[in-house]
């Protein structure tokens, strides 16, 4: 064998013109995309960093067990606001979950195409309504007639905001349940309402609960709808027909105050609020991990 035998070109020899330039462009775009995704995550880490840095020092046992104290006094907490937020969320769920779930069932199982088009459209518009507008509407509906701010009004405002969210996720989850189950159940001569409640809704239960938790997490941090409904309260609420404290309101009040110790408490409150929402989201993850039909 000698050198006169023509050998096959190497890969690089066979590469088309502009190959190196193309590789460079590919790498550059890759770096750009990585940079964008880091840029997306940076704000999250900034939020966490500042909350922990500024707020962690103000979190102690008193923070969870004591009422707010005047600036300068030690040992003040946000116990009333934490409980108030939980109470408001519970009331919001009482409004938002039944109406949202029933609406979603109607959309997925009963509604005609025409009706569904308008209901979905309305729900999507509702989703886009600024939260402060909800607060104003509920102010007119529930605060003005009863001449007092109240926990009821705050819960109603948050609940109304939940309805479109819960409704659309419920509908989507029900539509994911294969038609075959409905047909099989119908073929057994089972009445329609039993098929929907016992077979279809149960099959979609995880997804529906996930949607409810996501909606709760979403309204948990809302401040604007509470400003002229729940108002806020520096003491324990003993009557739901009276104003009630809520974490976002307390944070707002403390953050705009001129006192340093209140500012620290505002940071701590924000950290606790974020922690609560994080816990809700972890539940969502746990529940939706082995969801069927997706």
């Amino acid at each position: 064998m000698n050198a006169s035998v023509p050998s096959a070109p190497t890969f690089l020899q066979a590469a088309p013109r502009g190959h190196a330039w193309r590789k460079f462009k590919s790498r550059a775009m890759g770096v750009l995309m990585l940079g964008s995704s880091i840029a997306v995550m940076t704000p999250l880490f900034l939020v966490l960093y500042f909350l922990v840095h500024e707020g962690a020092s103000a979190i102690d046992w008193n923070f969870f067990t004591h009422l707010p104290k005047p600036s300068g006094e030690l040992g003040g907490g946000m116990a009333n606001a934490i409980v108030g937020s939980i109470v408001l969320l519970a009331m919001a769920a009482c409004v938002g979950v039944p109406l949202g779930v029933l609406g979603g069932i109607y959309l997925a199982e009963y509604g005609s195409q025409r009706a569904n088009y308008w209901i979905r459209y309305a729900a999507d518009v509702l989703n886009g309504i600024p939260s402060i507008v909800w607060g104003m509407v509920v102010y007119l509906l529930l605060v003005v007639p009863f001449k007092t701010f109240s926990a009821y009004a705050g819960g109603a405002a948050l609940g109304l905001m939940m309805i479109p969210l819960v409704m659309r996720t419920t509908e989507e989850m029900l539509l994911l349940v294969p038609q075959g189950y409905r047909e099989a159940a119908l073929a057994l001569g089972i009445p329609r309402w039993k098929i929907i409640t016992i077979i279809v809704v149960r099959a979609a239960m995880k997804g529906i609960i996930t949607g409810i938790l996501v909606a709760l997490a979403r309204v948990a941090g809302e401040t604007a709808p509470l400003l002229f409904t729940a108002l806020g309260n520096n003491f324990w609420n003993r009557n739901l027909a009276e104003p009630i404290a809520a974490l976002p309101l307390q944070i707002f009040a403390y953050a705009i105050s001129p006192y340093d110790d209140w500012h620290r408490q505002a940071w701590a409150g924000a950290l606790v609020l974020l922690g609560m929402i994080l816990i809700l989201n972890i539940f969502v993850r746990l529940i939706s991990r082995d969801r069927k039909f997706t």
Partner: protein
Amino acid sequence: MSAMADPISVPPPAASVSVSMPPAPAGATTPFAPAQPGQVAEEVAFDINRFSLWYSAHQALHEVSIKIPSRKVTAIIGPSGCGKSTFLRALNRMHELSPGVRITGDLRLYGEDLYSPAIDATLVRRRVGMVFQKSNPFPTMTIAENVLCGLRLNGIKDKQLLRDRLEQSLRMSALWDEVKDHLYRPGTSLSGGQQQRLCIARAIAVRPEVLLLDEPCSALDPIATAKVEELIHELKKDYTIVIVTHNMQQAARVSDRTAFFYMGKLIEYAATRTIFMNPSNPQTEAYVSGRFG
């Protein structure tokens, strides 16, 4: 083919021809000869006259007239889109789920009009059960709950009755021995063939009179298919069975009568052996010999 070895009744030749277009006067379209010498005449389960069905503007069934015998297996064959599934679903008003469906004509089960406004579709479906192409055990229920679901959700609470039905239904669907030790596992934990037999058990647990099978074996392997076919042979002692199938060997193996549908029309309906050995319509012959469809 085993069906040919079976002593299937052969209707008199003159009556074995059945063509739906143009529609003949009611009653004259289908042969109903005595089943065998010395036996009483076959009882008619479904008596269908000039039944048409539209999906909005599209006509899916054209004046179908057919008499389906009681406690026999009737196979419906035909190419995809010929209306055979539509026809099957009309037998228990399942198509009412689809919007824009309109029907004309007469569809009777043991003389009762299935489409009478006085009769609720759920009452029809309790008497006319159905098994689907894709096995569909309810995902949130155990094997036992799946079988008993039709009874429980129709309000039966008697524990003894439920226990008996559970075993009977699973035995009839030839699944009992395979699942008796884990009745409380999810229905979806079974294999595909077992799931389909579970669906059959679920359908027969409510004791319907008729069982509609919509391509019950098309998703199954040959062994599971053989089991389901064996089961069909067993079940026809108690049930009127109508089976839609794409598989002509299967139609030949399991059925007593075969109806050939094409383009929404009933082309020919006769004893299975006649359809496969000596069809009178050239389209039927072309289809069963594999030359089209």
